[in-house]
């Protein structure tokens, strides 16, 4: 069966976390609220709760990651789960085993929660369609498609600083075309009814039909940043230059890099976010990344609470609201 809503069980429960698209504002708010309660746990000396005791979480990363993988691992351990990290470089897939065979084998080892990152868009959906009923999949990034937990931790961070999101304006700056974070964030922000979403980038880095998602597109960063409350910077990868989408990183920084002077066009209390890893001097000036308006490291901390919330929700061990 192919179904856009496979992340929900027939009773409306969140069974997998694959994308923020179609998740709904109520569901997202529930995750954010639950994450708030876990953020309290993380501040205590004894940081563990027993919600996933007896569960085995597999971190299955087919693409390298530091932040996402470590925070998922910490989150699982703070929920008292057993954690298995699979190094795909040395695993059976590099010997030609198919993705679905890898998953079937891990299921046979009684692993019941897969945290998966994969370079192909839709890989997590494929796995979710083929796992047993009591097995859960959390998408930790699939190709250019989605990175729901990053989007959720971002809106969590935004909400903490700007509780009245419906009054606020968010600018996403950079390579939206190749960004799963941007896609997931746009869906999450729309579901939460944020005041305005802007995209700022040269046209080669913009996906088609952003306007259809309710996003205002700016090619000029100075105009795009005017009076925004939240600035989300995206990482620029070197291969964009190799594929002739941009002339050079220095030209990009000169045209679209976030400098203190440009940030001054936003509201004085605007916050600056970045999913990391940052390229200083390419998309962001160090004075901004390390400056008083930056909440970049706070995002990393919040990632643990959000991932605890998502894992507890899909595993069915957190209190859930009725329906969707």
């Amino acid at each position, binding site marked *: 069966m*192919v*179904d*856009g809503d*496979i992340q929900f069980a027939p009773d409306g429960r969140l069974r997998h976390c694959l994308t923020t*698209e179609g998740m709904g504002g109520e569901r997202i708010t529930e995750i954010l609220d639950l994450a708030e309660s876990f953020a309290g746990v993380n501040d205590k000396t004894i940081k563990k709760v027993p919600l996933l005791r007896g569960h085995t979480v597999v971190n299955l990363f087919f693409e390298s990651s530091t932040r996402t993988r470590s925070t998922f691992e910490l989150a699982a351990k703070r929920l008292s789960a057993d954690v298995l990290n699979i190094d795909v470089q040395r695993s059976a897939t590099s010997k030609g085993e*198919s*993705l*679905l065979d890898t998953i079937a084998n891990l299921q046979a080892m009684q692993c019941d929660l897969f945290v998966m990152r*994969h370079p*192909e*868009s*839709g*890989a997590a*959906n*494929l796995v979710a369609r083929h796992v047993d009923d009591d097995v859960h999949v959390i998408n930790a990034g*699939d*190709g*250019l*498609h*989605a990175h729901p937990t990053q989007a959720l931790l971002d809106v969590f961070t935004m909400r903490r600083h700007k509780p009245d999101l419906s009054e606020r304006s968010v600018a996403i700056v950079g390579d939206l075309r190749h960004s*799963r974070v941007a*896609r997931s964030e746009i869906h999450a922000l729309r579901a939460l009814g944020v005041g305005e979403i802007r995209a700022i980038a040269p046209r080669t880095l913009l*996906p*088609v*039909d952003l306007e*259809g*998602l309710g996003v205002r597109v700016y090619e000029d960063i100075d105009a795009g940043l005017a009076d925004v409350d939240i600035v989300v910077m995206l990482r620029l990868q070197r291969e964009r230059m190799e594929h002739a989408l941009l002339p050079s990183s220095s030209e990009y920084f000169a045209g679209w890099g976030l400098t203190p002077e440009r940030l001054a066009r936003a509201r004085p209390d605007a916050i600056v976010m970045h999913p990391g890893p940052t390229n200083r001097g390419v998309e962001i000036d160090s004075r901004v990344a390390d400056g008083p308006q930056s909440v970049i490291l706070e995002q990393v901390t919040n990632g643990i609470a959000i991932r605890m919330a998502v894992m507890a929700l899909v595993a069915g061990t957190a209190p859930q609201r009725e329906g969707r």
Partner: protein
Amino acid sequence: MTALRITGGRVIDPGSGHDTEADVWIDGGRIAAIGAAPASFPSHDRIDAAGCIVCPGLVDLSARMREPGERHKGTIASESRAAIAGGITTVCCPPDTAPVIDAPATVELIRQRAIEADQARVYPIGALTAGLDGQYLAPMRALARAGCPAMGQADRDVDDSHVLRSALTYAATIDRPVILPACTPSLGHGCAHEGTVASGLGLPGIPVAAETTAVARIIALVADTGARVHIGRLSSAAAVDLLARAKADGLPVSADVAAHQLELTESALTGFDARAHLRPPLRSTGDRDALREAVAAGVIDAICSDHRPHEPDAKRRPFEASDPGLSGLETLLGLVLARVAAGDCDLVTALARVTAGPARILDLDLGHLRPNAPADLCIFDPDTETAVEPDRFVSRGHDTPLAGHTLPGRVRTVLVDGRIRSD
């Protein structure tokens, strides 16, 4: 060989526009007469076609049999049997087999296997360039003599415009049409139509410009060389416009569309359905509607199945890593009839696109009903609907995004050379 009389059917010969209730008399593998019995017709068997359409067997310009080279996906025996199940009596297979159809021996092998299978006629399309590499000309004259009605490149572009120009000129010398793909490779790296759906799913897109740039170059070289070129599998409204203008200018170009392009759009990819991973990709509703109009108006000359059978594992992968293509032989007729049911065009016109239209492109003495023509016939019931159940396909390929659809029509009896081939 027993003589046959097909009685009571509505006989349609799309090429001539002939459409009447009549008997069809078959003797010696050929049509003896339509209407009144010919003088001294021998003793014969009778096929009751009351309530059915009797038309020429369908001619499919592009269906992969997977043999030689990929017998785990399909064989000439399995796929020509599937063709018959779909009412198709003539199948053209593109040259991207392994080895490539660039030597008379390969043509001979395919023809021999088809004779052994004793199902549909199989015409191998010869390679235009050796190995389909786009560098050296394939031995087109020898391939034509071995039985290739046309030369082509399958999905492989000829990057070097000098080589393409020269190949077209040479093909014109031996008076063979050339079938070319409509995709500029450097723009065709994606796996889905560059549009809203692919953007939302994060799938790399294939822009319409991949098709228009290719079609524009082909048209320029047709004008230059005078070669007859058939463009395989158009997918966009913009390319249809280019084709219509070239035809209005009197250039010898023709084109086909894959039948599923007339039914489905990019929305079939929702949820990463790998069965909808096709080449060219399913495009927008506007593109699909333009293709429908072009078929009705005759700007597009033929509808093909673009049959590409796969083993099941080929689709059990993330979308982009899955193999493109669907199993299409057994849904071709239904998709054509669906256009009639939707009111796009009349039955005679629709059937012309899968009989006389494609046969004319390849100069084949097929796809029509007239005395002394080979008795290749498709008899179908137009009033019974057929549910698309890929598990029950005769083909070894069981993947199609049309699964679960219901299409009009049901094939009853199929004859090749006056002999019943259908079960």
